[in-house]
């Protein structure tokens, strides 16, 4: 059997640098704020992505509001979700918080796909792409300043629309990285990290732990919301059933691969994760592996990565081994 390894490499690179990798980097940066720095075991990150995407989509596609306003509304929806979710759950232990947040994300998905909500959300079919330039993503592509054509190095080529998407997505990732870096070196970041270590100690020193956790939840949630917006912008359409719990699990894998509580860990993690996943896909396809089982094999593989990472290198690529070994 002939396997074209350049093809495998090119496929991997195209996806590793593509907009989807940027989406997961954003979602994982949000999780890094929650879990890596604050110790909040949020397993409902996909819920933030959902409300971000839908907030924007409903505003722009259904109510014909301008794109910029839609994006702001999408982010505000994520803020609202963080507040709504935070009040009952932020006082809970880590494991209860995990269960509650995953439940909340599933509640959102069920509600958004239900037919009584179809008027507002488009129901199970979601918000389709609209031809004729009235959909939310056409507004985005109209802003594309890049002249038509294909760009890239060697075999790794991108069309001008894809390049525009990538440019914006990775720019947002860069902004998020700088924001997290600036926050985490400050006294605010110190309080956040102390809450991860022991919230009672932080409380005894006069820190309003609940308020800080809420700020962290909002910040990471908005990053998740932006990730959701970029995700559907890239697709041009959205359905509730694309926001499954495994999106959150993917984002965790990305975060843990790169290294939790490191500033660029999620970015590196996402690029690597998608590179590996796509390269494997490409390899399996070329070896004639049945496409029906491919999706399942890929998910099983993610599960395996997650297990091995947590068991053998919980600090990820960039984390500090010594820190991980310390017991509380």
């Amino acid at each position: 059997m002939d396997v074209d390894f350049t093809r495998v490499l090119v496929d991997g690179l195209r996806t590793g640098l593509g907009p989807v990798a940027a989406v997961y980097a954003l979602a994982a940066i949000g999780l890094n704020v929650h879990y890596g720095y604050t110790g909040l075991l949020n397993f409902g990150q996909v819920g933030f992505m959902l409300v971000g995407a839908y907030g924007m989509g409903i505003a722009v596609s259904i109510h014909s509001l301008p794109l910029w306003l839609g994006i702001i509304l999408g982010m505000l929806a994520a803020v609202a979700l963080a507040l709504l979710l935070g009040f009952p759950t932020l006082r809970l232990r880590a494991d209860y918080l995990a269960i509650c947040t995953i439940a909340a994300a599933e509640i959102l998905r069920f509600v958004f796909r239900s037919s009584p909500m179809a008027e507002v959300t488009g129901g199970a079919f979601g918000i389709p792409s609209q031809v004729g330039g009235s959909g939310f993503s056409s507004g985005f592509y109209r802003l594309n300043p890049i002249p038509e054509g294909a760009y890239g190095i060697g075999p790794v080529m991108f069309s001008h629309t894809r390049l525009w998407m990538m440019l914006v997505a990775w720019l947002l990732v860069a902004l998020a990285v700088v924001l997290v870096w600036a926050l985490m070196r400050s006294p605010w970041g110190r309080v956040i990290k102390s809450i991860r270590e022991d919230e009672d100690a932080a409380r005894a020193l006069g820190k309003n732990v609940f308020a800080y956790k809420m700020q962290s939840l909002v910040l990471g949630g908005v990053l998740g919301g932006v990730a959701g917006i970029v995700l559907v912008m890239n697709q041009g359409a959205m359905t509730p059933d694309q926001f499954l719990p495994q999106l959150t699990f993917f984002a965790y894998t990305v975060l843990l691969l790169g290294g939790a509580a490191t500033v660029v860990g999620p970015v590196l993690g996402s690029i690597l994760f998608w590179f590996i996943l796509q390269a494997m896909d490409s390899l399996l396809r070329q070896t004639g592996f049945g496409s029906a089982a491919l999706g399942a094999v890929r998910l099983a593989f993610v599960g395996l990565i997650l297990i091995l990472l947590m068991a053998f290198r919980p600090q990820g690529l960039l984390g500090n081994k010594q820190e991980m070994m310390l017991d509380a």
Partner: protein
Amino acid sequence: MSARMRAVVLALLAVAAVATTAGAAIASTPPDAGGDLVLAQGGETVRGVLRDGEGEPVPDVAISVATPDGEVVGETATDADGAWEVGLPAPGDYVVTLDAETLPEGVDLRDADRNPLEVTVRSAQNRTLIFALGEGAGGSRFLNSFLAQAVSGLRFGLIIAITAIGLSLIFGTTGLVNFAHGELVALGAIIAFFFNAPASVGGFGLTLILAGLIATVLSAAAGGAIELGLWRPLRKRRTGLIQMLVISIGLALLLRNALQVWFGGGSRPYYDYTIQQSLVFGPIRITPRDLIVMALATIVLVGVATMLQRTRIGKAMRAVSDNRDLAESSGIDVQRVILIIWVIGGGLAGFGGVLAGVVENVSYLMGFRLLLLMFAGVILGGLGTAYGAMFGSIVVGLITELSTLWFSTELKYVWALGVLILILLVRPQGLLGRAERIG
């Protein structure tokens, strides 16, 4: 009991079965499943016969079939016998809509939420769908449907309870929140499926009872193997609880998708499964199948409770769950107790999976869909207590099914999960759990 009533009940049950199947099919679509997932072979249809509450055929009712993207693939109207059939371009997911406007005077859909129906059609399948009709609201109709929903809620709750005991005991003894517990449920159901399937399709053709027994034993073995092969070594290396939680998520992804490769992405009923006439006890109607499921579940639950209460090993389990250090220092072999809990928990999960497969359908995703409800039940009862888990799970089952009396069936899990969050708002340690110490 009039024939009419019986027909209504049958229709209701059939609709419930179809609706759950449809829900399962929709939820089980893999995330990146494109049209290329299933090879088109042709010959697929959806069809059915429309009869009113009295069993009379209803002609000239418009029915249309569309893809999930809204593209209409076929339209038809029922003939003089009430029969209809629409040919499909390929296997896959479809949405079947009955045009309620075209129903004759005095005939309505029993449940307007069950129109349109979402279905998955397998290759070369002629899928039969039932739209339940009847006349507008009758006198004691609410009571009847209340009882019907209460029974199916109880049935569902009992199944959740069986699967949740292991989850709860494992948490109580090791502190592990096991996100991979649902996969043991699916494993049991799928093993039973293959032992039950006739030899012609690669199975062993055993009766479902025997197949279920084997599945329970093998799931118990799987539980023990996971404990010995994964969790015990991790505990020895003093892996943190949060780390283990994440590992359990990885394990869940791995197992679930391995099951998908093995079983396929669709959902199928057991081969022994047949639609049955329901038995009537006063105002309550129940099929023998459901009766058996509920009786088995109750017997097993009582058995587990007795075991925990009376036997040495049961007492040891509760002791370890109560206070691990104390149990250890009083000479209990904690590692052995944990292993036994995994074996029992795995067996119960697999058994619950078989029951769930009998009631609904078998699919690789069934465990994951049950998982959040198990968590809800376990937390409702207070994490780590077996009785709490039983109590909480039954409450969750009842909430789920009874909610459909007032709200859309599509939202039935929402209420159970909502209650979970509400309970934690009021009592962060669950209803029967204890508060933690500070300082």
